[in-house]
């Protein structure tokens, strides 16, 4: 069979992950220290695991309601209300999904008509543009700048909006930069968006990981809730990546359409994870606070070390990433990462993987123990010394 001829053009046009090759190489080498992963190093807190075990022992694992267990949706509504002052109705405004990623995909498929433009703030997580294309939309990159702390400004937004703009994709706290948007940063954007027929998809998966400030959602602003889809999940906050559980919260007409797609494609999110997640939302505030405190120590430690070695790094206040600039080495991010891997056996992710505007940066994950980070910093420092002289 001529597969290429027969298979979907759209699927084949999606570029494979730009860093796959490079991390495959890292796997063949000895003594490599990775700062590459995008998931917590903590184990899922025990009360959550215990709830899953007791579910297996005491319950049958049947299909559940398409939208997710009512009890879980109620807890999600409580959580959003108590943490972010965002009231959502568990009956018809919350949909439990397989991780935040499904919620992102569902949003695109629910909102986009062929040819609609989706503005994607960059640098950003890599899944947005391919998923927009799969939904027949046109991804339009909206680069943010380090000099603005990688926050989106009103001028940038205004200049990017066209009559075809259907949706703007925001993800703060941001992967890969660690940037956050504060209330005062959203205000001017809200002024632009409030009277337009443009939706906002706000991916808030890292909402628990802010350091020194409280997370602010754009849906909190008057007039924004009706045009915003909030995506969130359990993976990062509760260290539950492999449990595959997230949610979307949006006005009822949007959820109604998204639920149909979810129902036919997925049926329901995993029931063991759903029962465990109820426990997470009810009883794990202390465990989460402990993890955040540790991330913050590591963040400060690395910022200080980078400062000492003269590696310019924007002071990230969210997620668990730093995004230092490697401009001073004269290398682009891919060359830098490849050379660093070969010479010092440290694996980091080139900023270019997250959009053209990240080509002078590298992404450093600090979801690693302090011991691990200390050794990695020593190697990076040695590398920089060598390549600057």
């Amino acid at each position, binding site marked *: 069979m001529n597969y290429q001829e027969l298979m979907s053009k759209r699927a084949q046009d999606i570029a494979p992950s730009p860093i796959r090759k490079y991390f495959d190489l890292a796997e063949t080498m000895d003594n490599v220290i990775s700062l590459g*992963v995008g998931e917590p190093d903590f184990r899922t807190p025990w009360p959550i695991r215990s709830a899953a075990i007791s579910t297996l022992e005491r319950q049958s694992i049947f299909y559940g309601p398409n939208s997710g267990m009512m009890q879980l949706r109620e807890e999600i509504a409580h959580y959003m209300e108590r943490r972010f002052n965002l009231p959502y109705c568990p009956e018809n405004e919350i949909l439990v999904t397989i991780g935040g990623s499904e919620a992102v995909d569902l949003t695109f498929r629910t909102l986009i008509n062929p040819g609609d433009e989706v503005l994607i703030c960059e640098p950003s997580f890599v899944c947005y543009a391919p998923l927009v294309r799969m939904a027949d939309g046109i991804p339009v990159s909206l680069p943010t700048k380090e000099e603005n702390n990688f926050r989106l400004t009103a001028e940038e937004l205004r200049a990017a909006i066209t009559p075809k703009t259907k949706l703007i994709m925001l993800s703060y706290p941001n992967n890969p930069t660690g940037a956050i948007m504060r209330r005062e940063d959203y205000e001017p954007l809200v002024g632009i968006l409030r009277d337009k027929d443009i939706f906002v998809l706000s991916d808030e998966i890292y909402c628990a990981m802010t350091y020194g400030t409280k997370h602010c959602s754009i849906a909190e602003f008057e007039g924004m809730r009706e045009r915003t889809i909030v995506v969130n999940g359990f993976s990062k906050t509760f260290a539950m990546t492999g449990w595959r559980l997230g949610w979307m919260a949006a006005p009822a007409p949007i959820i109604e359409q998204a639920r149909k797609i979810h129902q036919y494609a997925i049926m329901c999110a995993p029931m063991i994870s759903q029962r465990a997640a109820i426990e997470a939302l009810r009883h794990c505030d202390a465990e989460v606070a402990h993890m955040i405190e540790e991330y*913050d120590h590591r963040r*400060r*430690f690395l910022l*200080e070390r980078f400062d000492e070695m003269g590696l310019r790094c924007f002071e990230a206040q969210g997620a668990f990433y730093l995004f230092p600039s490697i401009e001073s080495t004269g290398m682009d991010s891919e060359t830098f990462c490849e050379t660093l891997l070969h010479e010092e056996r440290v*694996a980091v992710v080139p900023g270019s993987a997250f959009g053209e505007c990240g080509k002078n940066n590298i992404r450093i994950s600090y979801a690693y123990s302090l011991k691990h980070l200390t050794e990695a910093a020593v190697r990076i420092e040695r590398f920089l010394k060598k390549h600057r002289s």
Partner: protein
Amino acid sequence: MKELLALLKQNARLSNAELAAMLGKTEQEVAAEIADLEHAGVIRGYSVILDEELADRDAVSAYIELKVTPQPDCGFDELARIIANFEEVESVTLMSGGYDLGITISGTGLRDIAGFVAQRLATLDGVLSTRTHFVLKRYKEKGIFILEEPDDERGVYL
């Protein structure tokens, strides 16, 4: 203070500068806080966690359960103090449950420890019985892995 202690428990060799960076304080503030904690007796000392097998192949450790008669005026404290004064003794704790004092000791051989228990411990006034457990292998101590740390199973997914 709690954060500072948590960091020191993970690694007491972190410099004041590193601690200051992590806690968002100045080096002077950290130094003062540590001095206060030492002065108040909260921090009693700094030690090192070894893989004893690598450090000294002949080293032997044991955990000893002691049943004792409490003294009328000072309970278990006096006897515990006497035992703590032996150089071989690494820790002494008063326990709830089936015995009273738990002791860890180390020596250079089985005989060393047997001698210590028979001649020094068992003969003390107030000691009713002893039970000695030898340490066969250490896996983790004070939160630090003695064995190799578990592999990082996380893949790289963007």
